[in-house]
Structure formats: structure tokens, C-alpha cells
């Protein structure tokens, strides 16, 4: 029976539509809220190599924790995000069949493609303890600075990006540099 010009059918229609919006809100806001409510960092042993994926390992810097939301190991690729307080130390391994300069140009383009970010200073040649040759440079963005390095090894590119504010970077970069120096490509042999 209608009430104040609103019919029973309109009321049930409204109820259905409100339930629909609630279900959408659950997906769009409920899941992210639940995700934010749970911690994303985990302790990680810093005295042994960590398997990033694609046959690449690195010894994490002392005091770092791993962020599981941006860490995805796989057979032919992988990404790991270490956090040292507010500093992000990201290592990404991807299949790649180009040269080192092209790989560096690709990462530089991605950095400068983000609004407000630019590459600073000159690039340096670096090498890891295992003999991987790479190129390293710096960049800056709104309120934060960073460091990038790229290595190429046997059909893989290893990209390292570090970012944080200048004070935190100054404090943690020596440990991160030491960690980057432990990058090793050692593909597991089948059989």
C-alpha cells in the first residue's frame, strides 16, 4: 500500500538500489579499508641472500623489512620492496633482450614520466661483487630524492630504485649501496 505518494514497489526498488550501492562500496572502499587495516611489512633475514625471482638474489640491508604488497617473486621475473623506515628500496627483475644503455634510458623515461620528477647529476658505472656491471644515477621529486641503478644479465634487467627524503636517504644509503653490491644472478639449473 502506498504511503505519502510512495508505493510499496518504489520502496522495494529503492531498497534494492541501496543494496546495490552498498555492495559496490564494499568492493571499492571496504576491501581497500580492510587492506589498510592490516600491516604490510614483515621481518626479513638480513644475513643471507633473498631470492627476488628470475634467478636474482640480494642480501637485504640490516634493519630492513619487506613490504609484501609490492613483493612478487616469480620464475622468470620478480620484485621485492624493502623498507628502511620511510625509505623505499625496490629491486625489480624482468626478462630483457636489449643493451644496458637502453635499459637505463627506459628506467629514466619512466622516472621522468611521473609529473614533477627529474633525473639529477651524472650517471656512474657501478659493479656488484658478483661481477654484474651497471649504471647508477640520481633523481628528485616533490619533497623527496632518490637513486636508481640498472644492471643487465643474461636476458634479464635488474632495476634498483631507492627513494625517501634527503635526511633519511643520507642515513640509509650506505647500507643500501652495500646491499645493491650483493646482487647476484645465478639461474637455477633444471634437473
Amino acid at each position, binding site marked *: 500500500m502506498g504511503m505519502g505518494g510512495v508505493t510499496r514497489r*518504489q520502496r522495494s526498488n529503492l531498497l*534494492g538500489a541501496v543494496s546495490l550501492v552498498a555492495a559496490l562500496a564494499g568492493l571499492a572502499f571496504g576491501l581497500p579499508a580492510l587492506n589498510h587495516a592490516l600491516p604490510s611489512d614483515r621481518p626479513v633475514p638480513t644475513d643471507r641472500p633473498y631470492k627476488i625471482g628470475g634467478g636474482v638474489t640480494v642480501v637485504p640491508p640490516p634493519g630492513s623489512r619487506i613490504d609484501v604488497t609490492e613483493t612478487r617473486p616469480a620464475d622468470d621475473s620478480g620484485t621485492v620492496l624493502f623498507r628502511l623506515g620511510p625509505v623505499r628500496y625496490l629491486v625489480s627483475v624482468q626478462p630483457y633482450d636489449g643493451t644496458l644503455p637502453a635499459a637505463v634510458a627506459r628506467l629514466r623515461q619512466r622516472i621522468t614520466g611521473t609529473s614533477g620528477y627529474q633525473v639529477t647529476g651524472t650517471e656512474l658505472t657501478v659493479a656488484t661483487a658478483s661481477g654484474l656491471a651497471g649504471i647508477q644515477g640520481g633523481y628528485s621529486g616533490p619533497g623527496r630524492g632518490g637513486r636508481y641503478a640498472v644492471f643487465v644479465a643474461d636476458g634479464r634487467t635488474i632495476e634498483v630504485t631507492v627513494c625517501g627524503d634527503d635526511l633519511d636517504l643520507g642515513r640509509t644509503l650506505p647500507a643500501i649501496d652495500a646491499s645493491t653490491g650483493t646482487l647476484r644472478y645465478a639461474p637455477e639449473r633444471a634437473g
Partner: protein
Amino acid sequence: MTAEPRLRSARSAPVQPGAEPDRGIWRRPAFWIVIAVVLTGAVQMSLIAVRFAKAYPIALITATALFALLAVPFWFIVSELDFLEREPPPLLVLAFTWGALVATAVSIPGSAALDDLMAKLGSPHLAADWGAALAAPTVEEIAKALGVVAIVLVARAQVNSVLDGVVYGAMVGLGFQIIEDIVYAMGAVALAGRGDQVEPVVTTFLLRGLLSGVWSHTLFGALAGAGIGYLVVRADRTPRNRLGVAMLGVLGAWASHVLWNSPLLRDGLGNGAVALLAVLMLKGLPPLLLIWLLVRSAHDREADYYTAQLATLDDPELVTAAELEALRSGSRRASARWHARVRAGLRARAAVRRLQRAQARLAVEISRGTPDLSRRCQEVRRHRRMLVKLGHPEAVVPAGKGPWRRTASAAFSTALAIAVLWAAVSTLGGG
């Protein structure tokens, strides 16, 4: 003359003729709420589009053009599924828009959050292996199924058979598929790090448009839509049964999506185009066959119902017994058009199509109990006169297997589709 009591449609009663869409739709609160939700989704997706347009304008235009072109044949096929009782275009547009703007806007944060939750509650390894297979299908299939629910809330009278649910579900899926493909293409451009280049767009088009397009969201959406269509039209069944079938439809869509995204057979069955095609078939064919059988069954049931309505007229100028037979299936309707073309030329083919459409509209009007059928009858008679003038008075299927040209055309189309698939696989490095 009355309808036979043992018709498939009579046994399962899947067809509930609805009224012509009218302005009553505006008086439904759901209409305005759904419009508000669509506008919110449009704002969200526009923000993403603006970001892409600033960074990679040429790539964005290319991706939009390529995937919009891909949408055309899909739209045509989906809207033709229900030839006899066609869905109102504004509702088809609403379904497409829901998939393109609402389901995508909801799925981007929802899927990412669920993927993260898998890493947090399980492990990064679990998320890396099964995140794409479980998180995305869970959020996306629910968001798309809600699109069919939205159509039911806005225009319940237009969902009057399981096939209608299939059509709306497929349209929601198509909208989602097209926008998701564009977003993926732009992601590939950004990842390539070579600036505003179209090459990653073309690769994404080959991979997601041509190789994965057939067994993608349009298919999953159709499966979920069938379940919701059953829930709506089977008023004769218990609520538990109807809800169970609806859940089964959505679960089927989810399972098909999980199978497609799963890491199973990720390393393939070896190297080369044949191995890659075999994996595509193994993962994509089961849901494709399932939905094909479902559509065929739903279509035949609906055709039974509407041809029974036409049979009550008992007027050979409106519809003959042979034409009723031709109207019962899509392939027979197409055969009748080919037959007309072979016998009397292209104009006769077009005239048969118009006659079939007019007969379908008349059947729907009869099913609605419209007291004055004169306008629809005149429409049919007008097309009949045209056919008589062209020397092909009856839209019938020829005896035997049908015109050889149609068989040859079907064989050519299949060969062309396989060649395109093969070329795409080879271009992507499978050959």
C-alpha cells in the same frame, strides 16, 4: 490454433513477456541511483584517462580506436543473440556503460586490495602465483554481475527470459573488456619506458584483443547474466532454487575467469604457435562451449514461445508454416536470407531480414496481449508485398543443407579467424 503444450518454453516457462519500455522507468528510485553511480564511475575513469592523455596522447588515441573497432563485431553479435525479442538500445548502452565505467572503477582498487590481502594473509609467493587468478575474478565478476542486477532494478519488465540475462550480462562484460584492454595497453606503454609509442598498444591489441578477446569478459558476463536471468524469470520455482541457479551462474563466470587467469599451463605445452594455441583452446574452449550451449538452449526455448504466438494468427500472409520453422533458429533465419539472395538478389535478402524482424516484433506484441495489432500486421504485410514484387514471396529455408555459398562463406570466415589467430600468435613470438 493454440500453442502446443509440450513446447520447451511451456515446460520451463522461461519467457515472461514484458511491457514496452515507457516513462515509468523515471519514477523508479533505482533509475536515478544507477545513473548517479554511472556518473561517479565516469568521473573516476575520466581522471585515469586524463592522466594517460597527458603522458601518452598518441598511444591513448590508438588504443581507444583499436579497441573501439574490436567492440563493433562483439556488439553486433551480442545484440543479435536475441533476434526475436530485441533489447531496447538504451538499456544495452546502460549495460555496456556499467561494465565500462562502474565495474572498472570499482575493480581497480578492489582487485588491488584483494591481491595485497592475499600477500598479507598468505605470502608474496601465493599472491604472485594466484593473485591475478583469484583476486581479479572475485572482484570483477561481482562488479559485473551487479550490472545485470542494476538493469533488473531499472527495467525489470525488459528481463523476461534467460536469454535477456545473457545479453545484458554479455554487454556489461563487453564494456568492461574494452576499457580494461585500453588500461592494459596504456600500462604496457608506461612499462616500456619509450615514451608515447604505439608498439606496446599493438602488442596488447594482438594479445588481449585477438587472442584473448573471444573468451574474455563478454563470455564470463553472459554466464553470470544467464543465472540472474533465471532468478528473475523463474517465478514458478522456489526462491532457494532461483537464488541457487543465480549463484551458480556467477560462480561459473568466476570459475571460467579463474581458469583463464590461472598459472596452470603457464609454461605452455612446449614452444611454437601450435603449443600456444593449444593452451588457449584448453583454457578458453570449455567456458565458450558452455555458454554456446546455454545460449542455444535459451534461444530455442524463446523461439518456441514466440513462434507459438505467431502460429495463433493462422494467417499465411503474416507468417507461413515454413517461415515459422525458419524463425526458430539463427542459422535457419540466416539460411532463409541467403536463399533469398541466391534466388532474387540482394534486395530480396534485405527484404527477408526486414520481414523476419517485423514478424518477431508482431510476436512480441501478441505475447504482451496488445489489443490492437494492426500497426504490426501492416508492417509485416508491407514487407510481404515487397517480397512478392521481388519474386520471392516466402522467407523459407531451402531443402537440404542450404546454399553452397553460405557454407563456403562460413568455411572462409573460420579459416580467416584461424589465420588471424595464427598471425597474432606468430607476431607475439609463439612461432
